[in-house]
């Protein structure tokens, strides 16, 4: 059941991205996906395995739901976020879309706890929210640096 819900959430995140009217260049799309994934994987590993602030499920099907969250939902949402910031002119649209995407990720995070895919041991939902916000900011910062390399 959890896996099905995460599959649907992955489908929703990919569909939202696919429906965006303007896209980044192919190399930029790949770059954001790679950077987003590497950031998220690092973060998950450090928080879970090194500091043991979060305990992961030992059930394989729930683990695959986590993999969908880590390797599909979060990187695709980050890609959508960067694409909107780069291609949309209106500030209202930019802020509105960013808040929606942030809310979407927080919902997925909440579901992770609800479905016992992971448990907070010395961690909290607030810390996760700050953490995700930092990943969004860091990804945007790295993308802006990358964008400066255009034409070189």
């Amino acid at each position, binding site marked *: 059941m959890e896996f099905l819900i995460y599959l649907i959430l992955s489908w929703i995140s990919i569909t939202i991205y696919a429906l965006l009217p303007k896209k980044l260049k192919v190399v930029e799309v790949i770059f954001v996906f790679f950077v987003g994934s590497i950031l998220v994987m690092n973060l998950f590993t450090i928080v879970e395995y090194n500091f043991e602030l979060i305990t992961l499920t030992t059930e394989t099907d729930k683990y695959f739901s986590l*993999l969908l969250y880590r390797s599909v939902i979060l990187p695709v949402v980050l890609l959508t976020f960067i694409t909107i910031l780069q291609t949309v002119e209106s500030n209202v649209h930019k802020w509105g879309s960013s808040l929606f995407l942030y809310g979407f990720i927080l919902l997925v995070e909440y579901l992770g706890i609800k479905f016992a895919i992971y448990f907070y041991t010395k961690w909290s939902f607030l810390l996760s929210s700050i953490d995700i916000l930092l990943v969004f900011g860091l990804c945007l910062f790295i993308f802006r640096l990358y964008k400066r390399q255009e034409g070189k």
Partner: protein
Amino acid sequence: MTIYDNHFNSNEWFLICLLIAVYVIFFLLPKRFPRQVTIVFLLYGIFVSYFFDLTIGLKPIDFYDVNDTSKYSIFDFITYVMFAPVSYLFFYIYDRMKIHKRFTPLYILMWACVAMFMEWVSKYLGVYHYRLAYEIYYSFGIYLAVLSVGIILYHRIQNSLETEKHSQVSFKE
């Protein structure tokens, strides 16, 4: 947490020497791609190594551990960063030699064999520690998949660059 060893020994020296060697090769190679493409080719190696090591190398799957402990350490990070110039070299040679589609599978096979040899050396020197029923030959399938996806990625990027170039020319006209 599993601890395999506590000393600065063969696996660390091997990684440092390899890291220096691959980055020296990378910086000595003449520039071939636009900088944005170079960065993506470098990132491909890092992404793939992170993806597999932090997917099948962690609990509950946990097929193997990297370096001295089962935890994520600085030398694990060095291992992943080391893959960046290696993946760049894979794309560089493919592009430089203008390998025909017919010979692409052979090129992938050749790289998969080199990767298997390097993994065998790494395992021998204590970089990788297999757990459960994992055997080195399982990695061969992963290498074939990863290298094939790399070639698809290469062609996708090349096509987009071509399209971009043509659209710029027609815009000027």
